[in-house]
């Protein structure tokens, strides 16, 4: 039997030493754990459909340089933090200096703060399920920690623009850690973009800790180029009566993978997870989500939609795990999929594990095509075929797009969707 491929040692050399000692030590420790780490294969259940798209070449192991980069000057309707190749660019960032909301880059932390952070990084994630998040922990060169004190409310959305400059092959490892204190509120927008054409990998980890009554909204836009492999993980831990809302909108690439793990640890916590994925050409997108109902009386509501055109491939795996003590849990998962071409593929798998006996748990998954009768109805009113296709495709996801709570983000999403429609329906 051929031995399973392991992670190349080329990936075990972190760059950037401008971090406090406790974080450097953590990195080293996480790196040591990756020695001989088997890479996911077709036989790895949670990478079954995606392992063949994963290409970790030695050229890609190099950290992308940040020196001299200023990033695209994007105007955003809120506060802004710019990361280029995983390193924060203070000159391009604009955010307030507040007493009750601390926004700091890892490099600026005191040793005591860094030591505290080092003890908490990765704590929101099930490391066995997100093997490649370990690579981020071994390689991050910078990061952002956001701490909201009790009752603090960030008055505008905070945009974190993650750009990778792919002028040469390499990788970037952006990292975000959010600590939302009791009854605090924040809307965090992560936008992943790219410039340049060389094959690169972006490996991200974003973690949220929600104390009692905290209210966090996370919007995540994956918009990198056709040369960008994106492997991201988001971990969320929620205490009593906290609320987490996420809107993940993803456009395909050679490999896009997002793992979203939510742990409802305190009674009365609720999460709402919305996701929209569109793929075309030979793109691939894989969303894996896990919701752990650990405490009683928690609500989770998950709605994901995939649209695959041409010869693209989309994957959704939604796991809900209701622990024994999580009585009166209310979990709702819905995944609908639209195939726009006979060459496209979508794989969906709801996974429910329920160990409590007094719960409400519903799930549904469908895969279909645009409805011919609906198209005929629209064109019988003079509407063109292309327009009819666009209307119906948009109708499939509009319910989720309109829920994105920041107008400028909705506009960005619509612009990208229009580009997608232009490509997907050009031959009609």
């Amino acid at each position, binding site marked *: 039997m051929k031995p399973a491929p392991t992670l190349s040692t080329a990936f075990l050399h972190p760059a950037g030493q401008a971090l406090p000692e406790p974080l450097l030590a953590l990195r080293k420790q996480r790196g040591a754990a990756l020695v001989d780490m088997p890479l996911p294969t077709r036989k790895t259940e949670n990478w079954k459909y995606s392992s063949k798209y994963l290409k970790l070449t030695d050229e890609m192991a190099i950290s992308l340089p940040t020196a001299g980069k200023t990033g695209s000057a994007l105007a955003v309707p809120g506060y802004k933090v710019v990361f280029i190749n995983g390193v924060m660019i203070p000159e391009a960032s604009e955010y307030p200096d507040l007493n009750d909301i601390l926004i700091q880059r890892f490099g600026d932390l005191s040793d005591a703060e860094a030591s505290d952070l080092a003890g908490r990084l990765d704590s929101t994630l099930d490391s066995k399920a997100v093997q490649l998040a370990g690579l981020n922990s071994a390689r991050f060169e910078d990061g952002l920690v956001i701490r909201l004190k009790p009752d603090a409310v960030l008055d505008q959305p905070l945009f974190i623009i993650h750009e990778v400059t792919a002028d040469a092959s390499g990788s970037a490892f952006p990292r975000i850690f959010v600590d939302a204190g009791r009854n605090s509120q924040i809307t965090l927008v992560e936008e992943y973009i790219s410039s340049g054409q060389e094959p690169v990998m972006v490996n991200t980890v974003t973690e949220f800790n929600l104390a009692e009554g905290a209210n966090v909204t996370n919007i995540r836009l994956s918009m990198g180029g056709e040369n960008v492999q994106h492997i991201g993980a988001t971990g969320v831990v929620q205490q009593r009566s906290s609320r987490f809302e996420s809107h993940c909108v993803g456009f395909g690439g050679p490999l896009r993978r997002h793992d979203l793990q939510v742990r409802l640890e305190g009674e009365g916590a609720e999460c709402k997870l919305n996701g929209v994925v569109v793929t075309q050409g030979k793109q691939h997108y894989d969303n894996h989500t896990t919701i752990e109902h650990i405490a009683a009386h928690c609500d989770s509501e998950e709605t994901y939609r995939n649209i695959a055109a041409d010869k693209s491939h989309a994957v959704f795996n939604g796991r809900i795990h209701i622990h024994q003590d999580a009585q009166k849990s209310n979990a709702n998962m819905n995944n609908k999929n639209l195939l726009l071409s006979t060459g496209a593929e979508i794989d969906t798998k709801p996974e429910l594990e329920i160990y409590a006996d007094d719960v409400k748990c519903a799930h549904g998954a469908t895969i279909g095509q645009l*409805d011919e009768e609906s198209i*005929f*109805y*629209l*064109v019988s*009113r003079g*509407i063109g*075929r292309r327009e009819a296709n666009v209307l119906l495709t*948009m109708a499939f996801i509009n319910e989720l797009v309109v829920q994105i709570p920041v107008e400028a983000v909705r506009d960005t999403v619509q612009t990208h969707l229009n580009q997608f429609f232009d490509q997907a329906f050009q031959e009609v």
Partner: protein
Amino acid sequence: MLSIKNLHASVEGNEILKGINLEIKAGEVHAIMGPNGSGKSTLSQVLAGNDAFEVTSGEVTLNGENLLEKATEDRARDGVFLAFQYPVEIPGVSNMQFMRTAVNTMRHHNGESEMNAAEFMKHAREVSKQVDLDPAFLKRGVNEGFSGGEKKRNEIMQALLLQPKLAILDETDSGLDIDALKVVSDGVNALRSEDRSILMVTHYQRLLDHIVPDYVHVLSDGKIVKSGGPELALELEERGYAWLGIKDEATAASSALSNSAN
């Protein structure tokens, strides 16, 4: 206006229309009656351009132009409108967005400027009153959760907005109570004009009490077997299709059912 000559059409290899001949002049209202399965709806769908039906021979012209070689959307832009027997529900596309897109496509086609959202809203509200449909319906998904009567009124509303040259009404009376029938009929009567032709397809005579046609044709087994004036409809009402030697499958089926029950 509309000229149909020896039209044959099939669906999945079964011939449904077996040589239809029909001339409709501008300003005329024609009713096509016939039992279930006679080909009434097929004729409507074929005229609107549904690909599910294959025209095997014959010709159809609208104002001298070959209709059959045109795509559905081009027929609509040239003025063909089909009020569906079963209007399709399209959740996620608002009725307003749908109708405005259709109206603006038509205006664009006619060399007119497009209506902006506010202008269209104002116009649509007025027309919705005409068919007694609450303007709140404009914000809902196309036909989504509408009752049978609301769907039919929504069809007539679209006809009023699009002002077609040829309006084909496919069983527009089916599923309507008396009040809704009155509203829908008033809408259709409002459509009547010198430069518009209307083709009504119906199983029953009762619609024709409200919308008096100029001509009535009886369709049976894919052919028009009798034509006449409005009095023909009354005669059919009184004497049934059997009077013309036509087996009404619905009636036959129900009597067969009661026979077997005995």
